[in-house]
């Protein structure tokens, strides 16, 4: 291919949150190709299949091309889509938004944002949140309930005080990487080489995943627990660490609330004389105030049982120790299927290799016990002193653009009006995490409780296939008075929309971001195809029509970017003046942030938890009505928690890992990518398949029950026989609905008879603390079609 006469444009790919620097070669206004930018720190010239497919995605003839409105009633097989102008589309949406607000109140309008990637939702979501705030609705949805609550909220902020920051592996310094439910080699492409480099220099890679996903296949040790039982595994690791005294007592005494005395009668901390917390000073054999700090001559007891002013109490660590006492590796073997000796071995390796890091993602999280599972895992880092130290469990840089989400525009009591608070998720309400899971929205639409949701604007969200219980979601969307949806492709949920909008790919849109080493103003590498608009332009133009010009920089996106860039003291014009952007070095990684000195008090800053310390025991959780410790609980549904469902549906459905070439439910229409992975499938263990007469390549139906045992739904898939799953487990990849016309592959729909795994879940099995949905351990049965 000739690369003469071509213009080179520096940009970055934001299909996923990893953000890879790219160079786009553009000739006569057409994209010739996209390559990784060798100067990018993240990807060093490499690029994944999604980014490399840019030109097939951009010039795809099946994209949504024009705004359209329905001309036939909802429920008709043919919506009668009619092309309309952007003016008509936006005027209609604005009028409906005003009407619903006047009739039912602003909380009755829901702002749904879907995937991070595709059209760069991980960037523009800030302004979408601002639109909902200025409008006055506390109901702004995302994907956290099926994605990352367990990493960023609410558990880690409440117990460990790191609100908003995700864990990030310190690849160059760590000697041990423990990954759980996280196919990181594929889902964070630019990290693949860093992890493999760490492994080749001697760091051990241990992967916990019920399925031999690509990352598990590269592990030094792979543990395959029964889906949804990782918590038992971690509790048994704690058991070994405590029994063999592999924990770090000094770290526990001074940086955590492990020595805080807890009353035996009510589970609250013992307080006295204006001191909210006490420890037992082993040297003086007397209680000692901790606010939360105590003098260095105090040696707080971690174990024992004491009496303070007639109140019997024990240190939090004693309660934690008592809790894990029953969780021996032999016990965990029964729960998890992982041999006790393997658990012991990994626990010892983890606790004796310094520094040791850990990270996890949605495989761990999509479970009714996901909150406590993530907590127990994070606490492994705390008890071994691996928390926020070089090479340990570290966090992404807190480099931040100015917050433009505009929560200040909401009324003071907004959190109490949110669906999250009204549905009883008190820990999340406490953290003011108002991002509402779509299942709560569907319930509110269908039942009118706690209040009706009447309208919705959804951008980049495949609601009909991306949320558990697709049938319920479609029924709910049908009930809405008004639904407008924008996307790159026509998705199944659009069958229920009143207006659909064609959105630009991220390649055709702009934003500002940090793509190390550059602070960059990403400009369109080609103009949007057809009549597509960037989501950001939709948001700004809609804001103007709603009368929010003042709150939206008079509709000037460049001014909004300049505002975001303010902490960096740089403007969009300055970034544009040097094509790749401006080289920027963030402050060096800070470790042990808990130990930083507060200038005013001269004491350690501690962490942003209720006690100011890392919390082994959460009194706040206790007062909100939850278990203060991550005690064992079976996943629901599951063979032990709902045995009645497993009598008829004996297999366990797991729908975990995602391969690198797909972005959740997107991109199946891109033929190059489809040539890698032509059709959806179900992995069935060879021995199980033999018993029921299923052969490799057979078409099979997978069926699941609702909570009450009646049929929830089915999917039909090609059987792939394998030994990479346990005989009682099947694996179905998610995100399959779209056809690929050019390869002669038709779409699959989203409900019964489709390939959409989300049609198989009853969404009523939720984690009571976080609201994540129990999906990883779902009962099912398989039969030949």
């Amino acid at each position, binding site marked *: *291919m000739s690369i003469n006469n071509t213009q080179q444009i520096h940009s970055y790919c934001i299909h996923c949150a990893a953000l890879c620097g790219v160079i786009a070669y553009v000739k006569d206004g057409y994209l010739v190709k996209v390559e990784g930018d060798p100067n990018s720190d993240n990807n060093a010239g*490499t690029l*994944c299949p999604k980014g490399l497919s840019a030109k097939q995605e951009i010039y795809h003839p099946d994209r949504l091309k024009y705004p359209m409105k329905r001309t036939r009633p909802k429920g008709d097989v043919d919506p009668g889509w009619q092309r309309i102008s952007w003016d008509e589309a936006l005027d209609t949406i604005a009028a409906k938004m005003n009407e619903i607000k006047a009739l039912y109140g602003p909380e009755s309008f829901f702002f749904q944002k879907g995937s991070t990637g595709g059209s760069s939702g991980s960037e523009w979501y800030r302004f979408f949140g601002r639109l909902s705030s200025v409008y006055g609705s506390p109901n702004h949805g995302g994907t956290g309930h099926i994605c990352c609550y367990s990493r960023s909220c609410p558990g880690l902020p409440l117990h460990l005080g790191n609100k908003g920051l995700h864990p990030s592996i310190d690849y160059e310094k760590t000697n041990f990487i423990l990954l759980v439910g996280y196919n990181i080699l594929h889902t964070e492409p630019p990290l693949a080489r860093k992890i493999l480099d760490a492994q080749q220099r001697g760091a051990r890679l241990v992967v916990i995943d019920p399925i031999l996903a690509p990352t598990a*296949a590269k592990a030094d040790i792979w543990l395959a627990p029964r889906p949804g039982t990782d918590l038992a595994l971690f509790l048994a690791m704690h058991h070994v660490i405590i029994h*063999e005294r592999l924990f770090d007592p000094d770290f526990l005494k001074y940086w955590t609330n492990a020595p805080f005395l807890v009353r035996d009668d009510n589970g609250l901390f013992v307080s006295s004389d204006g001191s909210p917390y006490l420890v037992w000073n082993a040297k003086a054999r007397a209680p000692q105030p901790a606010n939360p700090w105590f003098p260095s001559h105090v040696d707080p007891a971690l174990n024992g049982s004491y009496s303070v002013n007639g109140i019997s109490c024990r240190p939090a660590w004693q309660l934690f120790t008592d809790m894990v006492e029953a969780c021996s590796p032999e016990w965990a073997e029964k729960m998890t299927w992982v041999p006790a000796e393997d658990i012991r071995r990994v626990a010892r390796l983890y606790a004796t290799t310094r520094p040791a890091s850990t990270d996890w993602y949605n495989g761990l999280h999509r479970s009714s016990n996901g909150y406590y599972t993530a907590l127990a895992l994070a606490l492994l880092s705390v008890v071994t002193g691996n928390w926020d130290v070089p090479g340990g469990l570290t966090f992404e840089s807190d480099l931040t653009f100015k917050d433009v989400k505009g929560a200040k525009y909401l009324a003071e009591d907004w959190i109490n009006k949110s669906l999250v608070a009204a549905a009883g998720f008190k820990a999340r309400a406490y953290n003011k995490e108002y991002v509402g899971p779509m299942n709560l929205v569907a319930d509110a639409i269908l039942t009118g409780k706690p209040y009706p949701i009447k309208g919705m604007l959804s951008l980049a969200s495949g609601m009909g296939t991306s949320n558990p219980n697709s049938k319920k979601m479609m029924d709910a969307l049908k009930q809405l008075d008004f639904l407008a949806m924008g996307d790159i492709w026509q998705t199944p949920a659009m069958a229920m929309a009143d207006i659909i909008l064609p959105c630009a790919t991220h390649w055709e849109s702009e934003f500002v971001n940090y793509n190390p080493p550059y602070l960059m103003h990403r400009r369109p590498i080609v103009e949007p195809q057809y009549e597509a608009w960037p989501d950001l332009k939709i948001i700004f133009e809609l804001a103007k029509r709603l009368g929010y010009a003042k709150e939206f920089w008079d509709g000037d996106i460049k001014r909004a970017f300049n505002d975001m860039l303010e902490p960096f003291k740089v403007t969009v014009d300055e970034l544009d003046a040097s094509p790749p952007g401006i080289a920027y070095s963030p402050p060096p990684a800070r470790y042990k942030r808990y130990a930083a000195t507060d200038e005013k008090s001269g004491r350690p800053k501690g962490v942003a938890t209720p006690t100011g310390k890392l919390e082994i025991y959460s009194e706040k959780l206790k007062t909100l009505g939850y278990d203060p410790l991550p005690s064992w609980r079976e996943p629901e549904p599951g063979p032990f928690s709902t045995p009645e469902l497993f009598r008829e549906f004996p297999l366990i459905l797991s729908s975990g890992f995602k391969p690198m070439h797909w972005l959740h439910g997107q991109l199946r229409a891109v033929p190059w990518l489809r*040539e890698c992975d032509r059709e959806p499938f179900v992995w069935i263990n060879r021995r199980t398949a033999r018993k029921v007469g299923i052969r490799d390549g057979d078409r099979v139906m997978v069926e699941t029950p609702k909570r009450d045992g009646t049929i929830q739904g089915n999917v039909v898939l090609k059987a792939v026989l394998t030994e990479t799953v*346990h005989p009682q487990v099947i694996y179905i990849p998610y995100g399959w609905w779209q056809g690929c016309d050019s390869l002669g592959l038709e779409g699959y729909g989203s409900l019964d008879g489709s390939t959409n795994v989300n049609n198989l879940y009853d969404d009523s099995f939720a984690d009571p603390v976080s609201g994540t949905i129990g999906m990883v351990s779902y009962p099912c049965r398989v039969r030949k079609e």
Partner: protein
Amino acid sequence: MARYGLAIDLSRCTGCYACMIACKSENSTLPGVLWIRIEEKEEGEFPKVSKTWIPMLCMQCAEMPCAQVCPTGAITRGEGGIVLIDSQSCICEGVKPCVSACPFGVLLVNQGNRSYFRDYLTPHEKQDYEAHAEGAVEKCDLCHHRVIAGMQPSCVQACPSKAMLFGDLDEPASDLVELVSSKEAKALRDDLKLDPSVFYVNKSPAEAENETPLAGGQST
């Protein structure tokens, strides 16, 4: 005179297909024509099971079994030992003997389905498809046009795992020669003595059973 070669570290390949798409993007091959593909191998029984991915592409054999059976002399060695097929001279009707002479199955006939999209050629397809003659045999040329310009083949550059190393096999002090000289490196089907330029390296992580005893257990 250089001899370009490739070492593929199978312990780093995660089967992500970036190489395959990079090749598509760079060379604009037609639907169904893959100059590099991934073979997947599963071994063992759960939970003692392993998975390996093996990228397969033209091995650039010095012995060129494909050229030996080509009746029109279309297959030659170009600069750096790269095996090239001249599409204008590749004019066999019906059976193409070179395709079956290749023990690696990496020669493919361009069947001529002209577009990835029904009734529609994208701008890059319009520009690039001229280079692909219908009915001609095609294969990987190690991105000949890039390597003669001092760049790496597109698959090598794109690989997120950095599992592929490109270089000159005649450069004794190079990383590539060091890697292909290691005991873990081997060519596929070395029994055929085709003298290929592509090598596979498999440095698997230490087997669980072979590890030294653990440090834990000193309960106090």
